[in-house]
Structures are given as C-alpha cells and as structure tokens.
C-alpha cells in the first residue's frame, strides 16, 4: 500500500533526476551554484503557478485563465505595488478574492469551470492591457532583492522550490482542511452530506489558487524586473502539464503538491536540455513536444509496473 502511495511521487523524482544527469553531462558548467541558479530560477514562478493550477484540478476543475491571471498579477506588481504599495496590495488581495468568488459562483450555478475560466482569461487579459498597455513597470526593490538573494550552500532557485513544496505539502496533504479539500475532488456529495459547506470549500480552493497565482506573478516580476500584459500566457498550459507530470490526475482529487513542483522543474529543465543539444532551429519547437511525450511515457512504464505489483 505504502509503495503505491509513494510511487506517485517516485516517477516525477526519477524523471527530474535523469534529465538533470543528462543536462550535467552535456553542460558540466551547470553543475555549480551559479549554474543551478541560471537553470532553475525561472522555474520558481512556474512552480507557484503549477501549485495554483493544482488547487483547481484538486476540486475537479481546470483553469484556462491562469496564464493571463499571472500576467495581470505581474502587471499590478510592477506598477501599483511599486508605486503605491498599499493600493497595490489591496488590488492583489482583491484579485485573490475575486478568484474565491469565481469558485463560489462556479459551484452555486453549477457552471463548467473550463468555460468560465476561458471567459475570465479574456477579462484578466483585458485588465492587464488597461494597466500596462505597453511593456514596462518596475519591480519593487525588495522583491528583486528577495528573488536574487544568495543563500549559503544552495541557490535561491533550489531553495525556493523546496520551500514551496514543503509548505503546500503541509497545507494540502497533511492538514485537516487540505484533506477536506481533496475530499471535494474525490466525492463532493459525501463532503456535502457530512455537513461541510462545499461552496465555501470551493471558494477556498479557488482563493488558494488565486493566492499562488499572485505569488507567481510577483516572483516573475522579481526575476524579470518588469512586466507586460502577455508575459505569462504560457503558464496556463505549462501549469497543467506540470500537475500531470507531477503525478496528478484531472479528476478525483488526486494531486501531489511536491510532484507538481517537481513537474514544473522538469518542464523548465527539459527546455534547457534541448537548447544544450543545439538542434536545427526548424526542429527546436518540435523537440519540445517530443521531450514532453518522452517524459510522460515514463508514466506508462511505472503505471504498468504499479498495476503488476
């Protein structure tokens, strides 16, 4: 039993390790404090966004607006949060709240989340264009400092994902409320029957997604020093892939926060690995698809094995 429980996380760990070994082999320079930082620092916002997506997938929904939402959060961070911190903070809080509201609305009207978030992706994107019609803005100094801090032993790019994984693991897997939230994904009716207000739980899950989405936007601005309205569009699909790569499933509340973080790191690393291979430009895009397929195919071997035992 425990093997099964653990094996959900083994696969992402192994894929990451194999890919990392291959990267080090091809580019030994990466095997240093400096190298690891360059390799992984842009994975930090992706990891946060993946966690946000995981919160939604956990309650059996899917969020197609996450990329635009993170972009919007980044725009707010690079403008309001820098110029008028109080107002900026208020706006970010309002964004989180509106995510929670969205969750409650999806539950109350029994709306398909995929459609609502599709609609919201236009809304967030439009708001981001209002705030930053042009690329620009400046990262708040403290944020830049936080994202470029150099802790002893391991670079920020390694420390931050570990912290994110640990915190979300405690929150989602260990804590009581996290268990109930996963229960909503497993069988919402039974959670409802046990007397939990499912609408609040949905709001909580979406609110958490909003929180991590905002954090992702902030982390991104801390790294890039400025923002634009399209900066994180890619995160929508990337975060979904990250959750799946990390051993999560689209339905049934089966998610793993640590796996999701590892999935995000793996995706980032896969892109770097390809660029070290120096393919012809024609095939660079296709190779990204191929490597995604390859990494996920490993899932198959594991699940066959899992079924066999």
């Amino acid at each position, binding site marked *: 039993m425990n093997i099964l429980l653990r094996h959900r996380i083994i696969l992402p760990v192994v894929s990451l390790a194999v890919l990392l070994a291959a990267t080090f082999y091809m580019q030994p320079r990466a095997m240093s404090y400096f190298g690891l930082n360059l390799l992984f620092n842009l994975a930090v916002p992706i990891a946060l966004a993946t966690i946000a997506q995981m919160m939604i997938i956990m309650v059996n929904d899917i969020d*197609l607006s996450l990329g635009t939402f993170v972009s919007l959060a980044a725009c707010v961070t690079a403008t309001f949060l820098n110029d008028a911190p109080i107002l900026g903070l208020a706006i970010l809080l309002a964004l989180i709240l509106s995510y929670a509201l969205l969750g409650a609305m999806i539950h109350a*009207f*029994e*709306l*398909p989340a*995929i*459609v*609502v978030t*599709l*609609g*919201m*992706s*236009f*809304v*967030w*994107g*439009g*708001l*981001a*264009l*209002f705030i930053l*019609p042009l690329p620009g803005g400046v990262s708040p100094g403290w944020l830049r400092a936080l994202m470029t801090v150099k802790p002893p032993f391991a670079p920020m790019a390694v420390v931050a994902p570990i912290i994110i994984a640990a915190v979300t693991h405690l929150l989602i897997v260990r804590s009581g409320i996290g268990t109930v939230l996963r229960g909503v994904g497993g069988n919402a009716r039974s959670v409802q029957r046990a007397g939990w207000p499912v609408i609040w739980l949905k709001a909580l899950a979406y609110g958490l997604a909003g929180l991590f989405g905002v954090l992702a936007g902030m982390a991104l601005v801390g790294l890039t020093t400025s923002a634009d309205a399209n900066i994180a569009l890619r995160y929508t*699909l990337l975060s*979904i*892939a990250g959750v*799946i790569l990390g051993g999560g499933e*689209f*339905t049934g509340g089966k998610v793993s926060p640590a796996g999701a973080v590892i999935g995000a790191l793996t995706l980032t690393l896969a892109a770097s690995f390809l660029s070290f291979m120096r393919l012809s430009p*024609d*095939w*660079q*895009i*296709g*190779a*990204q*698809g*191929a490597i*995604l*397929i390859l990494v*996920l*195919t490993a*899932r*198959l071997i594991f*699940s066959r094995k899992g079924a066999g035992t």
Partner: protein
Amino acid sequence: MTILAKPWLWSWLAAAAAFALILGLTGGRGAGELAYAALSFGAFAAIVGLGQMLVITLGPGNVDLSIPATMTLAATLALKAMGGEPGTAFAGLAIALGVGAAAGIANYALIFLLRLPPIIATLAASLVYQSLAIWSNRGLRIKPPEGLADFATGRFLGMPNVAWVGLALAIAVWVLLERAVAGRWLLATGQNLRAARLAGVPVELVRACTYVAVAMFAALTGYLLASFSGGAALNMGAEYLLMSIAVVVIGGSSIAGGNSNVPGVWGAALFMFLVVSMLNSYGAGAGARNVLTGAIIIAIVIAASTRRART
C-alpha cells in the same frame, strides 16, 4: 419555456444582439455586408468548432489542442504541393485531408498507446506539427490556385461558399449525432466509457474515429482559410485554439461530455465574430474589447445553465 430551455438559443440571441448593435451604429446600413462577412468568417470557426465538439463529447479531459498546428500543417503542405498551378485544387484537398487524418491518427496513438491525457498528448503533438510546417516551407506564403481562391472567396445564392461548406458539415454532424448508430456510440462513450464498453459499444473505435475526424475538420479549415486569405501562414491557426473551445461551450454543449449541440456551434461562431466587430465598431480598445468579450461569454454560460436547471 421549452424553447428557452434549448441551450443553443443563447448563442443565437447573443449573435443577434451583437448584429443589432452594429446596425444601430450605422442606422441599418450595411446589414447584408455584415451578415456576409459574419457567415464567411463564422464558417471557419464553425467547422473547427464542430470537430472540437465531437471530441469534447467524448467526455471530461478530451479536447484537441493541436487544431491550430494541424490547420497550419495541412494548409502549408497542400498549398506548397499545389504551387498555385491551376487544376490542382482537388489534389490539394486530398493532401490536406490526408495530413489531417495522419495527425488525428498520431494524436490518438499517443493517447491510446502511451496513455497520455489528451490535453497533454495533443499539446505535445502540436509542437511537432508546428516544426514540420516550418521545416517544410519556412513560412513562405504560397498563393492558392486561382480557381480555388475564387471558390473560397466566392458566393452561391448570396451566401459565401465557405458557409455552405460549414452548413453541410453541420448537417452531417447533426444527422450523425441525432440519428446514426455511430453517434449514439459516441454519446454513450462520452457519458461513461466503462459502462459504454460493457454495453457493447466499440469505444476505442469511437475514440479513434473522433480524434481523426477533428483533425480532418481542422485540416479542411486550414485548407479553406489559406485559400480564402491568399496563402498559408505559420501562425494562421493560432486564434482557433481558444475559438474552437469557446464556440463549443458558448453553443451549449456540455463540457462534461455525452451531450452536444450542433446549432449552437454555428450561433456561437457568428457571435464570436460579431462581438469583436461590434466592439471594434464602437471604438473599444484592446483592453476593453477583451474584458467585454470575456464578460459576455460568462453571462451567456450563466444564462444557459440557469435556464437548464430551472426546467
């Protein structure tokens, strides 16, 4: 009461409202012109939307994200093969459909053999198709043969030819879903794959055919769109990714699968064109246009779903 409960109604109402708002601006002038444009461009969205609808009907998690890449690849290869020579239109069509079928089979092979979730499988495959398109033609815009271009931009009985194609396909899909055994199999598979299998439905055949069908619809759209706009471009399919999903869900099909809605797809396709035109006509900037489009989509979905719940 029963007509209000029809989920496709809302997309048509929304399209009509957008149409009326534009005409309000011009004082009724240009109605025919606008309707013609809406039918032309709506047809492309409707055809990919019909394909996407079939896939979404297969149940939760089923969606084809490779539509844009398949469109581009099919159009690129077909137009390159035709090279603008007259009389090659049918050969080009065959190539486009062949590319579509191959892409569909490849997508399904990834899903079936490697057990990848369709979202991921089609996303990954689309990157490969994109590479193939770049490699094969390096983004050169080759003109379609004149006869084909004339057909794609031409009209018959006052309606654009592409809209006739879209209409014919819509009717075919409607008959399939409402009357045909295969359609029943598809709907059963979408509701509960395991139960359908145990009821004797050849579920894998159904899934395979559906993924091939959506890719062929996308390929056909790519072929027509390239002929319509004077050549294939590498990014020509980009906007059809969200568009194909949007027209399905605005059209009233259930995203949970097993339930689909052909007339709604056409209504939603017209709406998606008209709403942008309306906002452009009223001089809305990109930001306002996006916010309003999103808000309207959500409003339609809420209206459709609360109506359904009440009956």
